[in-house]
C-alpha cells in the first residue's frame, strides 16, 4: 500500500532530525509519499491510503486444445 497527500494539504519532511529547512522535501497535494507516514499524520486524515499501482496483467489462460 502507498500513501497519497490529501487535497489542500502539503507535507514537508526533514531528511534527518534537526536538518535545516533548506533540506526539507515538500510533497504537494495529491503526490505519493515515498516513505511510511508517521501514525499521527495518518490519524489526522491528511494522507490517504491508496492501492499500489497495478502490475502487469496476468498471462492469458492457455487456450484449450481444439478437438
Amino acid at each position: 500500500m502507498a500513501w497519497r497527500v490529501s487535497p489542500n494539504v502539503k507535507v514537508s519532511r526533514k531528511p534527518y532530525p534537526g536538518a535545516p529547512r533548506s533540506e526539507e522535501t515538500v510533497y504537494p497535494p495529491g503526490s505519493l509519499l515515498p516513505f511510511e507516514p508517521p501514525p499521527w499524520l495518518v490519524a489526522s486524515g491528511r494522507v490517504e491510503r491508496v492501492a499500489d499501482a497495478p502490475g502487469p496483467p496476468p498471462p492469458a489462460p492457455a487456450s484449450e486444445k481444439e478437438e
Partner: protein
Amino acid sequence: MAKTHGRQAVVLFDQYDLSAWLTSYEGADDVDIPDTSCIGGSTARRYEVVGLRGGTMSLSGHYDPAAGASQAVLNAAFAQAAARVVSAFPQGDTIGLPADLMSARETSLSAGTPVDGVASISAQAVGDGGKEFGVSLHSRAAAVTTSGDSASVDQLAQSANGGVGHIHCTVAAADTIDVDIEDSADDETFATLITFAQITTTAAAERVEVTGTVEQYVRETHALGVSGPYTYAVAFARR
C-alpha cells in the same frame, strides 16, 4: 522571569500596523459566572456553572487622519457589522512570543485635542468570544523575498480542540504569496493545518479557524510567485 516594556508591543488591526500611533493597548477577558444559589443554602453559590466568555481590546494613541493611520483606520472600522481581525503582541511579534487574537467589532471611538498636548484617539473593540491566547509564527519586521518556512514553535503538547490563525499582510507586492500554518508531532514531518487565501497586490488580513487535533509543533510556511516582497505577521492560538 522576564519583564516586558510596553514599547515592545505590536498591534495589528486588519492589514494595518497601528503600533506607530498607539501609546497603549489593553486586552481584557471576562466570563459570566451565574448565581446558582438555592433555597436551603446559607451562602451565595456561583462556582457550579461557568457561562459565556467575552473580551475587549482598548487602544489609545496619537491622532492621525492620514490613509492607513490611526484615525482613518479606527474611524472606518467603527460600528461596522463585519468583524475585524486584531492581533496584539505584548512583547513584540518575534516568532514564539505571545499573541492575543480577537475577531472584534469596534464599539467606541473618541478623539481629543488638548491645548497643551498631542491630539489623541482611543477606541474599544468587543470580541466574538474572548481573546485567544497564542503565539507569533511570523514577524512583520522583515519583508519576505524568498519562499520557505519559519522556525517551528514547540507548544509542548498536542491539543484536541482546534485553533485559530491570523495573518496581517501590511505591505503587498506585484506578486502572489500563499501562506499556510503547519503542525507536526515530531518537528520533522509537517503537514498543512491552515491555508490562508492567496494575497496578491493588496494588503489584507484574514482569520481562519480549524477544529480537531493540533500537534505539538506549529510553524508558518510561505510560497511566493516570484520574489515579493511581502511584509506580514502570522499568529496562531490553540483552543
